[in-house]
């Protein structure tokens, strides 16, 4: 197991290294002089030269890369060109919003997706199965941003039940915070619920026809126990794999949902940064996202190995 973790961790480090090189080169692949871009269009030549020197752009590329990694590791992500605030500080302010949104959305997805997947598998070929499968297909086909607009149209514009947008920190007003997060979390969670439902259903169907389930039934175990303790446990690996694979989609979805509901999170920061060409922020946002993504995938791999001994014995790779 230790060997497995070390090997996976090493692979993750290599991916992070290559990703950081890509991000580093990406900002330098911009058309024109990055110093000029960072300084803004009507900066004086002195200001451009100062920026070039401040960012070490007058040094050779490998030196620049080492400097860049050193700065990132010491927590210095540069300053936003919009308001001159340290990028690290901006990220710390924005991240909790996105994390809350993602956590709530995952909760929605797991509650709806896994439960309906189990029900669909147990009641295969009956009404409950058709309803769940139908919703699953629709959930896969409806884009987040349309679902968000429909949600606002129904719950805010027509019924006046929920505010259409805005954000209040949880620490300030928990009720107000949740009231504003319910709709975004539902919108973001629905798509994943659909994916989870389909995967849970097919994993459960596989498990329910396996020999050990027949053995459990013939031992006279109750159906609840057969489904809960045997079939579900063996379907969990699938669910966890799917969660890991869907992480990228969760990040993309959060960006969209934050944009629709005007939540001051990481995603909105990203889009605003691109639209205002705020390169230090873009660079930091991409770096942090990729790092988080690689780390969570690493954790998923490890969780997967813990749940399924065959994986760590064969050292098999996913997907």
């Amino acid at each position, binding site marked *: 197991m230790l060997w497995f973790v070390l090997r996976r961790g090493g692979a993750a480090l290599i991916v992070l290294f290559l990703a950081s090189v890509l991000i580093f080169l990406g900002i330098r692949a911009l058309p024109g002089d990055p110093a000029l871009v960072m300084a803004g269009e009507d900066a004086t030549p002195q200001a451009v030269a100062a920026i070039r020197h401040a960012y070490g752009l007058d040094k050779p590329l490998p030196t620049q890369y080492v400097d860049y990694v050193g700065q990132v590791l010491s927590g210095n992500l540069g300053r936003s060109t919009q308001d001159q605030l340290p990028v690290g500080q901006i990220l710390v302010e924005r991240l909790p919003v996105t994390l809350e949104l993602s956590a709530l959305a995952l909760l929605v997805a797991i509650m709806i997706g896994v439960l309906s997947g189990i029900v669909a598998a147990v009641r295969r070929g009956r009404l409950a199965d058709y309803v769940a499968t139908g919703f699953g297909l629709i959930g*896969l086909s409806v884009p987040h941003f349309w679902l968000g607009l429909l949600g606002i149209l129904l719950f805010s514009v027509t019924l006046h039940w929920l505010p259409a947008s805005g954000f209040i920190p949880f620490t300030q007003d928990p009720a107000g915070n949740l009231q504003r997060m319910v709709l975004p979390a539902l919108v973001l969670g629905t798509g994943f619920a659909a994916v989870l439902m389909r995967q849970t259903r097919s994993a459960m169907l596989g498990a329910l026809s396996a020999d050990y389930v027949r053995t459990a039934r013939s031992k006279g175990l109750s159906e609840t126990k057969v489904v809960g303790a045997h079939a579900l446990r063996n379907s969990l690996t699938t669910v966890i794999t799917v969660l890991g694979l869907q992480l990228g989609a969760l990040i993309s979805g959060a960006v969209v949902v934050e944009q629709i509901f005007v939540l001051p999170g990481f995603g909105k920061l990203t889009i605003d940064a691109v639209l205002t060409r705020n390169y230090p922020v873009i660079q930091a946002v991409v770096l942090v996202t990729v790092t988080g993504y690689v780390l969570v995938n690493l954790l998923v791999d490890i969780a997967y190995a813990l749940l399924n001994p065959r994986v760590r014995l064969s050292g098999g790779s996913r997907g």
Partner: protein
Amino acid sequence: MAEKTHPPEPIVRWNSGRADRRRRLWRRFRRRPMPMIGLTLVVAFLVLAVFGPLVSGDPSAQDYLATLMPPSIDHPLGTDDLGRDAFARVASGARTSLQAGVLSTLLAMAVGIPIGLAAGFYRRWLDSIVMRLVDVTLAFPFLVFAVGLAAILGPSLRGVVLALSFAQLPAVIRITRGEVLAIREMDYVSAAIADGATDGHILFRYILPNSAGPLIVQATVAIPTAIIGEATLSFLGLGVQPPTPSWGVMLSDAQQYLDQAPWLAIWPGLLIALATLGFNLLGDGLRDVLDPRSGP
């Protein structure tokens, strides 16, 4: 090329002709309702994208005397905030959507298939390098990559197509490589090698045609993903730029007028959902017929 003896025909022909096989697959496909519904939706989407703009008039024509009008005989889907006909914009948007979906998938296939073929056929260091690069590519969530590309290229349809095809590359490479690894062990490939066929001949005459099934299935998964991807990027302002009609841009505009003109937010989203649903159902059906091993 000089005349040479031809190696035996691939087994996939079984003992009947290709037309027979196609007819048999079509019969199997047609038997169930869901794939047929999917096919119908996809054909309707194609018709809208190809012929819609020809009959609907100018999607950019503004009429300030008829802004935010509800659906009527003159404007079957209503008009937007600039008095532009929503049907004309929806039809042109279908074309943008189709372009993004098909172009990005073709580009990913054109780049990914040769890479996957080479990696699976020659293996060794080439395979290791390619698969590590695929891992790195997978470390970039699609939207992050699209954001980076929009930052470098500026928001445009070209950037969208590049980002979407890049996002599909890992899947195309993996599927092709996996197929090559399986097919190259087949007897008819060994026979072709023994017969002295060139690598190119083996790859493109024997291996590629027999990998077509999973790749076609992948395309039916990739196109709807790309359609949603284009709409999402355009919705966020990172994709197609106004005044070019795009379903994503239309929805983004509609958000400001939700209380006055809610219908503007209905049509583009409904069409995205129907087009996506159509491709998904079609893909499920094709998978059952062409690639029964994999499956949901």
